[in-house]
């Protein structure tokens, strides 16, 4: 159905040569994109991949002749179908945008205007540019909605963005991009914010419609497995420069550059499974709800052995973060009990003594919000030392330096503010803060999901090293199966507040699976360009069977 050469045969639609873009921070211009060439033919899909800061989104927008405020295109040419976009006036570009070049943003929830109905936003460009009358445009949108497999295509357009789920919004945005039948669509990380099971549907719908209308596309992502499903060719970017470019299959089979190879590396990190019966924390038949109405935890039972890692996996809304809140006492359970080191843990935070609090520490998903931006690293790591252990002055500083050493950061970082650190470094500081308390348990709530893959690997490796050294237990909450595979000893699968499956890693990851686990595992994109095609075929077959 899809081959590397089949569709790539039209004339060049987009040609970028020697593109250089600069960004401004604090009044200083520094390069973001340092000379990139790119060619895209009609109907071709090019995947742009790289870590954050690689300049892939900037290039994607530059392909429209657009630079975000604080950025400027300083050199190079951008030719779109014979039009020089760098020389084009604002008015000329405005005429192209939406009509001939369309953009699909990462977060549809933010990119849709909350004040207008979907249909009005979908047809806006087509109607304003006089491509269709409003009635025609509406009818066409309904058709697009249907093609994108949106439920209730006749009426979904009457809804406001907040009334529609994330996956549906992303498809609606694709419909909006498609409404003028553009020659080129820029997809900027369109599925990054979605759950895996939703991602499958959206990817399928997007690929389908691009093929149907023979639209050229630039697909920007950090996820190789995803881009493998979508792109004809892949270009790997790093620090604003091209690392390598090749047709998808070639690229997957034999990446040439070392950097490209490291992108694969995280998948290879696997922890030896080790089972233990020495339970430090056990959650028993716990129910919890916000404001007493909706049950977010429904009869949840989870055990955490000492010195081991239990991964709690599930999609958003599955109750996995609520479980963490119940354990920490932020949300006292309405039913059931939690035992810690053989004793029943007081339900509410304020009833727990200081030593209990010290023994259960937590690391958050976003280090940006979990580290006080007004405190230096010295204060952040030093505070638990002072608070729990009464270590003060030079002794405290020495201990902070040791902890920095333990998390593989130079002690020169001690007087920096969190804003002066990278995402991975911040997450390390969070870990050091938790370690400073010398806890029995660390609850890790999606600690790697905001990080690039290579950084993720470093953090996970660090966590494993620390577990070996201190025998701390991790309750590792995540939605990412790859991470689960890498770090856990046991796995708890949660869905809609219930525990679907619990057991040692090998047992859970290998068939037979309960239906939900099956769905979850099968939805994780694989590094195989035919994975999506096969999966859809499998599911269609299964449906027919049922």
């Amino acid at each position, binding site marked *: 159905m899809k081959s590397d050469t089949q569709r790539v045969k039209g004339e060049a639609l987009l040609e970028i040569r020697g593109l250089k873009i600069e960004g401004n921070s604090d009044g200083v211009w520094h390069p973001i994109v340092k000379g990139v060439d790119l060619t895209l033919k009609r109907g071709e899909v090019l995947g742009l991949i790289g870590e954050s800061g690689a300049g892939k989104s900037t290039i994607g927008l530059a392909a429209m002749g657009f630079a975000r405020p604080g950025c400027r295109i300083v050199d190079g040419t951008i030719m779109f179908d014979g039009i020089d976009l760098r020389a084009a006036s604002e008015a000329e570009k405005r005429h192209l*945008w*939406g009509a001939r070049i369309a953009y699909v943003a990462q977060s549809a929830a933010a990119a849709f205007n*909350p004040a207008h109905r979907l249909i009005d936003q979908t047809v806006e460009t087509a109607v304003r540019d006089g491509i269709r009358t409003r009635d025609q445009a509406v009818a066409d949108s309904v058709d697009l909605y249907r093609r994108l497999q949106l439920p209730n295509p006749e009426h979904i357009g009457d809804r406001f963005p907040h009334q529609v789920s994330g996956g549906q919004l992303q498809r609606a945005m694709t419909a909006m991009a498609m409404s003028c039948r553009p020659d080129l669509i820029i997809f900027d990380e369109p599925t990054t914010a979605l759950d895996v099971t939703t991602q499958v549907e959206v990817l399928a719908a997007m690929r389908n419609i691009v093929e149907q209308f023979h639209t050229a596309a630039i697909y920007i992502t950090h996820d190789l497995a995803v881009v493998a499903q979508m792109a004809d060719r892949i270009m790997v970017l790093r620090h604003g420069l091209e690392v390598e470019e090749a047709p998808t299959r070639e690229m997957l089979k034999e990446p040439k550059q070392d950097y490209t190879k490291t992108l694969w590396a995280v998948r290879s990190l696997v922890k030896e499974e080790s089972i233990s019966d020495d339970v430090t924390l056990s959650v028993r038949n716990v129910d919890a709800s916000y404001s007493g109405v909706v049950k977010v935890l429904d009869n949840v039972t989870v055990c955490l052995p000492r010195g081991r890692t239990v991964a709690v996996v599930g999609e958003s809304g599955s109750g996995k973060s609520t479980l963490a809140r119940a354990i920490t006492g932020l949300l006292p359970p309405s039913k059931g009990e939690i035992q810690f080191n053989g004793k029943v843990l007081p339900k509410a935070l304020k009833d727990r003594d200081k030593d209990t609090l010290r023994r259960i520490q937590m690391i958050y998903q976003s280090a940006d919000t979990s580290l006080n931006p007004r405190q230096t690293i010295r204060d952040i790591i030093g505070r638990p030392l002072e608070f729990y252990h009464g270590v003060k002055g030079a002794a405290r500083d020495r201990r902070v330096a040791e902890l920095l050493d333990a998390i593989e950061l130079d002690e020169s970082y001690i007087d920096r503010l969190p804003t002066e650190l990278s995402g991975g470094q911040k997450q390390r500081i969070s870990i050091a803060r938790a370690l400073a308390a010398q806890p029995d348990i660390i609850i890790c709530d999606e600690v790697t999901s905001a990080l690039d893959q290579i950084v993720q690997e470093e953090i996970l490796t660090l966590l494993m090293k620390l577990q070996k050294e201190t025998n701390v237990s991790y309750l590792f909450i995540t939605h990412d199966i790859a991470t689960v595979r890498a770090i856990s000893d046991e796995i708890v699968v949660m869905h809609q507040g219930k525990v679907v499956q619990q057991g040692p890693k090998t047992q859970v990851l290998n068939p037979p699976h309960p239906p939900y686990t099956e769905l979850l595992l099968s939805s994780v994109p694989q590094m195989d360009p035919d994975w999506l095609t096969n999966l859809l075929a499998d599911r269609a077959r299964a449906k027919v069977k049922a």
Partner: protein
Amino acid sequence: MHPVLKTVLQRLGLGLLTLFVVSVLIFASLEMLPGGFAEAILGQGATPETVAAFNKQIGLDRPAAVRYVEWIWNILHGDFGYSYAGMGGSIKRSVSDLIAPRLYNTFFLAIMTAIVAVPLSLFLGIMAALYRNSWYDRTVNAVTLTTIATPEFFIAYLLMFFLAIKAKWFPTLSTVSESTTLLEHLWRAGLPAITLTLVIVAHMMRMTRAALINLLASPYMEMAQLKGVPRREAIVKHALPNAWAPIATVIAFNLAYLVVGVVVVEVVFVYPGIGQLMVDAVSSRDMPVVQACALIFAATYILLNLSADVVSIITNPRLLHPK
């Protein structure tokens, strides 16, 4: 119950509570004021006997708590009571009669000003957001800043000097009465309205501009741009509908100011509004009038804020059309 209705009812309930607190606060302050109505009205001519006679007649010789309870009981029955000033003889001046014409004048001026000021500030604010950092934006910014930074009465006197005395376009006095025709009322209230417009347009325009500029960075504004929507249309169609909530709040605040905060302008232009009445009543310790004015002011403030809340709700589909 629809969430809008629920919110409105909830706010109304809170508003009533606030009114009650206001009445207690005002009553307590008045009680603490040195001197009483009799001393105030008799001025230099007060003697202990006349003061005592006065207090007895008005009922001021009874304990404060009794008077407060009685007053609030009457208010709950819709009776604002009688001004102390008329209590001397057989004709009592009811507070409602005293306040009604002045309240009309105050609302007249407020509405007149609002009709000019609100659209003007929206227009100026939208233009400033649209052409931000242009010479237009900077000029409007500097001018409005200066009007904010200048004492109100100073602006009033300057306008009076130039527009009334030099140019003779407006009268210097804004005295109006019930027999004043609508046209003359408009003409006489012209200068106060211009003064107030200058003062409040500055605030509202700056807020409109700020609210819009805040939104310009949001992803859907970038999306609108990338859909080829022209700047002007993007601001009006995409940013403005989302900016109504903060704009409505600041408009409500300024409209409330037009009703409750214009005593200085009333004094300068001799406009018989409710602000002067309240200041007079405070200085003569005329409790029923002060209380009634305070309640009207507080109610205006509460109702306007409530309207702003309602605007925020109905312009926000999240609240108007919950999932």
